[in-house]
């Protein structure tokens, strides 16, 4: 569905020196510096995949997704959507994509929500029966029937995002790009958005590409994640496999009746504070039951809990690399 080949983007940054003197100097001898935001990345996305882009702020996620959706012109490389280069054939290729960018709305602020959809119907030249069918389906998934006659300026953020989601799907695109869609949303709006993504992916086989900082989004939606840092792909693959590879351990948290905590020869004691000790062990070598059994032979245990390495550990490790 999507082929990204050797994609790069450089930004030209004007460096300014402090003070009036710097400002004047900058006026006559501007100091241009080229900052690579995305460096030579390549990947392939199959039809019907949901792919999550994660990475710290300024890592190049948004730049990548904006090049993929035709907004930014790449410095090098290409983005093919269904085999067509989006930079060269923008008007044709964008008929096949929908876009929702977190804090930015494409809805008309002054008019009722339905008018924004009507405009898109004309822009994408959608036949009336297809338009009606799509709106019915969207109403079933998101329940927009109750807000369609409301002026957009009077909507809550959650309602507005629903409106933007429907607007992005009016022309039934095969690919949907979402740039930090859950930013600022409350729990129920987040839930509705995730349900929407799962539904359109299941029913319409829509390919979904999203960037997010919300670990819940990733756990709920993405089988595949691409971790980007410093403009390069750090990890690309199946979520659970990446977790297993980067963090192949669990942590057993044990509480004793006093401050003495025994060592375990095949575990690493990562922390010991008061009566509580944390033992980290490799999943492939040991089970939690074995560790508990070994420790309880040495000392009486009061309480235990097990911590799985999660997506946040992965991100932390990936971000630090």
């Amino acid at each position, binding site marked *: 569905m999507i082929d990204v080949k050797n994609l790069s983007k450089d930004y030209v940054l004007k460096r300014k020196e402090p003070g009036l003197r710097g400002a004047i100097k900058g006026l006559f001898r501007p100091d241009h510096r080229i900052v690579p935001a995305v460096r030579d990345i390549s990947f392939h996305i199959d039809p019907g995949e949901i792919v999550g882009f994660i990475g710290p702020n300024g890592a190049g996620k948004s730049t990548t997704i*904006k090049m993929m959706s035709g*907004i930014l012109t790449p410095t090098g490389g290409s983005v093919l959507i269904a085999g067509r280069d989006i930079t060269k054939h923008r008007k044709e290729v*964008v*008929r096949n994509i929908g876009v929702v960018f977190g804090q930015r709305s494409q809805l008309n602020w002054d008019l009722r929500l339905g008018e924004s959809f009507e405009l898109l119907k004309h822009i*994408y030249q959608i036949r009336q029966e297809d338009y009606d069918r799509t709106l019915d389906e969207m109403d079933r998934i998101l329940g927009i029937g109750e807000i369609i006659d409301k*002026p957009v300026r009077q909507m809550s953020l959650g309602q507005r995002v629903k409106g933007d989601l429907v607007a992005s799907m009016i022309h039934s695109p095969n690919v949907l790009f979402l740039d930090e869609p859950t930013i600022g949303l409350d729990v129920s709006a987040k839930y509705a958005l995730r349900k929407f993504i799962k539904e359109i992916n299941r029913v319409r086989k829509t390919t979904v590409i999203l960037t997010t900082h919300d670990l819940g989004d990733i756990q709920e939606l993405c089988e595949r994640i691409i971790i980007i840092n410093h403009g390069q792909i750090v990890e690309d693959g199946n979520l659970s496999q990446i977790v297993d590879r980067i963090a192949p351990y669990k942590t057993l948290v044990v509480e004793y009746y006093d401050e003495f905590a025994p060592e375990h020869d095949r575990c690493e004691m990562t922390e010991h504070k008061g009566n509580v000790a944390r033992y980290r062990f490799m999943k492939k070598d040991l089970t939690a039951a074995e560790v508990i059994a070994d420790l309880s032979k040495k000392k009486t245990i009061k309480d235990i809990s097990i911590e799985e390495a999660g997506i946040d550990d992965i991100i932390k490790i990936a971000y630090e690399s």
Partner: protein
Amino acid sequence: MKNLFRELIHYLDVTAHVIKMAVMTVIEYPSNIAGWLISNPLQFIMGFAIIKFVVESFGQINGWTYGQLAFLYGLSVISHALSMIFFVQGWFMGYYVIEGEFDRYLTRPLGVLYQFFFTNINIFGVTDLIPGILVFLYGCVKCGVSVNLTFLVQVMITLIGATLIRGGIYILLGSTSFYTRSAVDFGQYTQEIMDKTTMYPLSMYPESIQFILTYLIPVGWISFYPAASMLGTEGVRSGLTVSLVTLGVGIAVILIAGAFFNRGLKQYESAGN
């Protein structure tokens, strides 16, 4: 050819719908209409009153009589109004560049400049149109212009060309934001300069300035040369020729501006979240 025709129908269909939405938006805020209906015409009627005062005090401006000045002034205000309807958004292009507002246009299957101007079509500009037409008709009557078909065609062609020249200049100025990455609100300055160069006879300026305003920044073609040729005030009457030159200059300016805009758009950086 068939594809081109289908594309034209597509654009016309969207344009009709966009105008419908603009009217709905106006109706949504009825108090704005009253304000615009009063303040905009007033501005131009005051401007015209000043000309009247000047002419009455000094007799003529550079050989142009009061009626002829009204003709010129009216012609200029009409094309100004048309450019306000279709191209006023150009004044704010810098903000669109800085705020990343071009994103939505780039992800839709229509030309970016078309969407930028037409989805923001400003039907309030009509309020400038009315005083323009009134003053122009007044000038026609005063000068005893015979309103025949040739004259109407001349005026139409001139207005299209003049509107394109104004629009093209807005695009050229606005597109600089892609390169400077800063939003400069040039609207007020441009309007001042355009007013001073299109509402009065260009021949009253020194020759060097006339040269600049004819060939380099071709605002002379917006109203001065067409009016002069229609009225014969500068000693030349030329039928359709001058109007066609205005149209040609308008098309040239808009094409150059479009190319400059598209080049800038490649450097568009959107805005971070």
